[in-house]
């Protein structure tokens, strides 16, 4: 009798987990967020009919960063900073690693979507 209850418990755990995995995941659409010096200056959904789109972001120290947003990916194609780290990073497709232009304090990041920001905190 006890055995049946425990087997039932296990099957329930697996069933609930499977349902949670199947239903969960892509609940909020991915959005590109552009911040300068910590304040959000622009938010664009990563999948919309107006894409591809190119915007120029005015950063600190008269900085100009050209952000290119395409279906599902974003990059900085041009920047008038000396090191060009943000340009060389290329395209990003998820929230794991944002594009940062340190001299202009510009951050281009993807929020929401499939990977939920937990990728940086592992035990």
């Amino acid at each position, binding site marked *: 009798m*006890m*055995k049946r209850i*425990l*087997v039932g*418990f*296990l099957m329930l*755990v*697996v069933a*609930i*987990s*499977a349902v*949670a*995995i199947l239903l*969960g995941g892509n609940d909020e659409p991915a959005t590109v967020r552009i911040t300068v010096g910590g304040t959000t200056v622009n938010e664009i959904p990563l999948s919309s009919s107006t894409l591809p789109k190119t915007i120029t972001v005015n950063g600190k120290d008269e900085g100009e960063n050209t952000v290119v947003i395409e279906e599902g990916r974003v990059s900085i194609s041009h920047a008038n900073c000396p090191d060009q780290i943000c340009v060389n990073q290329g395209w990003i497709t998820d929230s794991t690693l944002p594009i940062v232009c340190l001299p202009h304090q510009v951050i281009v990041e993807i929020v929401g979507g499939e990977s*939920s*920001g*937990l990728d940086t*905190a*592992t*035990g």
Partner: protein
Amino acid sequence: MASTPQRDSLKRLTLCALLTAIALTIFMVEAQIPLPIAIPGIKLGLSNIITVYAVFVLSPKEGVMILFCRIFLGAIFSGQMSTLLYSGGGGLLSILVLIGLSKILTQKEIWLASPIAAFFHNLGQLCVAALVMDTVVVFAYLPYLAIAAVVSGLFTGLCAQFVVARLPETH
């Protein structure tokens, strides 16, 4: 030679030490095997064959001692002291559940006790993670960890079942 109480307890201590060494060896060997899944907290947990065996065949007390010695030594030997908190929390919750299960299940049903204990191990681990990172978002991992726990728990449970069936009952 006659069997005295002193001799018996010495024999038991040696057995526990031996089991801890076996568990630690399995743990270290398993740590070298890369896993194709990139979710932290998921692994086979083969050393829990020893844990389950100890709780069911020896005694709950000895099971606890072997488990925590193995967790502590494993963290030192693998050089990952930061995981001590997680495996300690998970280990504590799972061994409590396991001891409870050993009271209501027979030695022929070890295969069932192991996946349940494994599930509570991952639950305990997530609770510690939630406390350490101060966020409940980590529970989003629970469905994945639960399924992984049931699969790996069944495997280690069956292994322990075979071990118990093949060892002579000398204790």
